[in-house]
């Protein structure tokens, strides 16, 4: 029996068209736009003002609170402006505009390819390096990593899971990273493992990436010969199923433990980090290199030139698209992220963030919603829901805004994976509606907590 989560899930076509495209660095754009709100939590506070000279890797904004992160310049040049600018989501956020001049890096950053395999013993120092490197979860949530790696007192971590599922269709940047930077990822995993007290580490990879599974197994075997620090790291082959990469689903799949509603992974002894995050940890700890670039899959059936690019943070999307030959004429949607949970973008002047993993182009035929008809009570939405919810019911309750019943039926547990909407033969926009209901429930829960 292959490993997978226990409830619901769907099997969309994986469409990994760009799987054979090696990660190639994209030329630095003439201007970058670095937002100070690239992570969950408080926005960072700018450290620079117009006219300042900056180097690659220089901090340009510092954490604006406990749950927040450093932001670094991804280029060398002159700060042109610091002010509000529309980001990927269309929200205005404080953005540092830098005119690129040359490519001068901060001192102390090791830019060589030499592999550093020694795992530092001083956990405090390691955590500080992760913090100073501006490392955040690159699997989608962009939660500051040093916070996640400092479990609250009383909780005990029993396993580190490195998420290499990449279960969203189309995306291949994690897959390429595993293939091309496998050593770095495993070393990064070993560093995190060490910080967490030497717990066992499972690298979860879906079965549609056999090359990556083989490669990582070889890498682990090789590194084990160097140091016992690499013992206890293993690869687990996962069945292909969406949303396997969802944190709760992955923990269920690997450890057969279900995080209770409203609970955190650490409550069942798990810490989950994504492949790209493990690489960022390696860079920050072993090479003193903060997050200044990340790999971005550029893909879509209608996109002539598939690619996996290493892109400097803050690169305008239009620059990426132009470098690959421009917008395909039949694309009607550009998505940042995967087709299941990604965000549609209309503003191509917006710039990439640390967590931008892909640009996906879809045609009308691929993406247009069909007209909604009556619910035929087929139960397909409920079968697909990985949280065991009843989307058809939540849909009804959301439409009449029955917050109490929504809470009783666990609308707040919805992880917005989209499986229900994907599956509904009547084309009912289930998740669109459920989101509204869920928001109402969250509001009610919050106001209750405040009263207490």
């Amino acid at each position, binding site marked *: 029996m292959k490993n997978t989560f226990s*409830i619901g899930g*769907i099997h*969309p076509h994986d469409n990994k068209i760009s799987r054979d495209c090696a990660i190639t660095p994209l030329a630095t754009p003439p201007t970058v736009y670095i937002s100070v709100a690239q992570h969950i939590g408080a926005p960072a506070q700018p450290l620079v003002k117009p006219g300042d000279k900056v180097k690659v890797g220089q901090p340009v904004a510092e954490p604006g609170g406990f749950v927040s992160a450093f932001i670094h310049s991804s280029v060398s040049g002159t700060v042109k402006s610091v002010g509000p600018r529309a980001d990927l989501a*269309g929200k205005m956020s404080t953005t540092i505009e830098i005119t690129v001049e040359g490519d001068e890096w901060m001192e102390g950053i090791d830019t060589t390819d030499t592999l550093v395999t020694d795992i530092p013993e001083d956990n405090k120092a390691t955590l500080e390096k992760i913090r100073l490197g501006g490392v955040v979860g690159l699997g989608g949530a962009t939660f500051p990593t040093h916070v996640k790696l400092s479990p609250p007192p009383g909780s005990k971590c029993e396993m580190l899971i490195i998420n290499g599922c990449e279960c969203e*269709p189309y995306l291949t940047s994690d897959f390429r990273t595993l293939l091309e930077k496998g050593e770095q990822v495993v070393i990064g995993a070993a560093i995190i493992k060490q910080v967490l007290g030497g717990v066992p580490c499972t690298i979860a990879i879906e079965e549609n990436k056999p090359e990556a599974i083989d490669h990582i197994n070889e890498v682990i075997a090789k590194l084990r010969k160097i140091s016992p620090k690499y013992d206890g790291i293993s690869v687990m082959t996962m069945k292909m199923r969406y949303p396997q990469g969802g944190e*709760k689903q992955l923990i*269920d799949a690997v450890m057969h433990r*279900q*995080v*209770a*509603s409203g*609970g955190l992974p650490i409550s069942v002894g798990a810490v989950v980090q994504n492949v790209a995050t493990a690489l960022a940890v390696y860079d920050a700890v072993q090479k003193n290199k903060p997050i200044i670039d990340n790999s971005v899959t550029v893909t879509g059936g209608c996109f002539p030139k598939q690619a996996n690019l290493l892109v400097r943070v803050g690169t305008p999307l239009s620059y990426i698209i132009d470098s690959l030959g421009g917008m395909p004429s039949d*694309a*009607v*949607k*550009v*998505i940042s992220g995967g*087709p*299941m*949970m*990604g*965000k*549609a*973008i*209309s*503003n*191509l002047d917006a710039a990439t963030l640390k967590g931008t993993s892909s640009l996906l182009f*879809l045609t009308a035929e*691929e*993406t*247009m*919603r*069909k007209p909604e*008809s*009556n619910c*035929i*009570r*087929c*139960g*397909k939405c*409920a079968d697909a829901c*990985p*949280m*065991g*919810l*009843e989307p*058809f019911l939540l849909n009804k309750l959301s439409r009449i805004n029955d917050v109490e019943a929504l809470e009783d039926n*666990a609308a707040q*547990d919805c992880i*917005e994976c*989209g499986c229900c*909407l*994907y*599956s509904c*033969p*009547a*084309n009912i926009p289930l*998740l*669109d509606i459920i*989101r509204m209901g869920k928001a109402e429930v969250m509001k009610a829960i919050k106001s209750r907590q405040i009263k207490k």
Partner: protein
Amino acid sequence: MSNLTVSPSPHIHSKDSTRSLMTDVVIALVPAVICSVVFLGLRELLVLAVSVASCLLLEWAVTRFMMKKPSTIGDMSAVVTGILLALNVPYTLPLWIVAIGAAVAIGVAKMTFGGLGQNVFNPAIAGRVFLLVSYPSQMTHWEAPQGLFGADAITGPTPLGAIKEGLLQGSSVKDIMTEHGYNYGQMLFANIGGSAGEICAIALLAGFVYLLVRRVIKPWITLSIFATVALTSLIFWGINPDRFTDPCFNLLTGGLILGACFMATDYVTSPMSTKGGIIFGVGIGFLTVMIRYFGSYPEGVSFAILIMNSVVPLLNRWFKQKKFGRA
């Protein structure tokens, strides 16, 4: 500004639509339709045509003139109802009665509730039961059919009817069976009189397997009906084989297979969860056998399904699937 579409996720959709699912049900019914026409002759084809046409016409008219909405006949559900109704009546039924059955199925059981998805009872079964109650003599009248190729294996009356009659006259089940020359091989491939849908068990089961393979339905409801019918009749038959028919007989006659595979599994009128579905199937199986053994109608599948349809809302409330991370 660009003219890119911005809408919430997800951005892709499965290929399933109501129409594709219903079309799959129609495809699954094709073997049974062919069998019934081959064994019963062209008159059966006429019944099928009238039934499907009346269902479509009625749904079109109701949506168009009464609900003033775009017509929904494109979703193919009316075709499914039409075929199922036709397979559930004698091939000799006067065509105007067939049309009345269709009118009740679509007009009363489906559209007055608000159309597909809103109805409580399976339309085809509601239509059939209405006919059974209103036109009992025509509905239980069986004639030896000619068949398309003049096949001669088929003689009336229905096995269940014959058993009921015989038992009333004091014969034992075994005597009646030998008297009518019933054997199970024959029942499996080409039945011995009965409504069209009882004609060929194998054709119906093939359709059922197709629906499973295409993941249109899940097997639990059907299997729990089969298991319950087998088990319940095994107990009674074990106690008194002279008075009660055996499990095989009960599984192969009286439209049980048609009902269990195609009507009890109707999305709209069956429970959502697997647990609920199993209870639903057990209920149908048990009620069917009870009605057959002790009721005044010789067969009970339709009544059993109708009764269980009415408790589906309760089953949906009581038997929910387990939620993630909740006790």
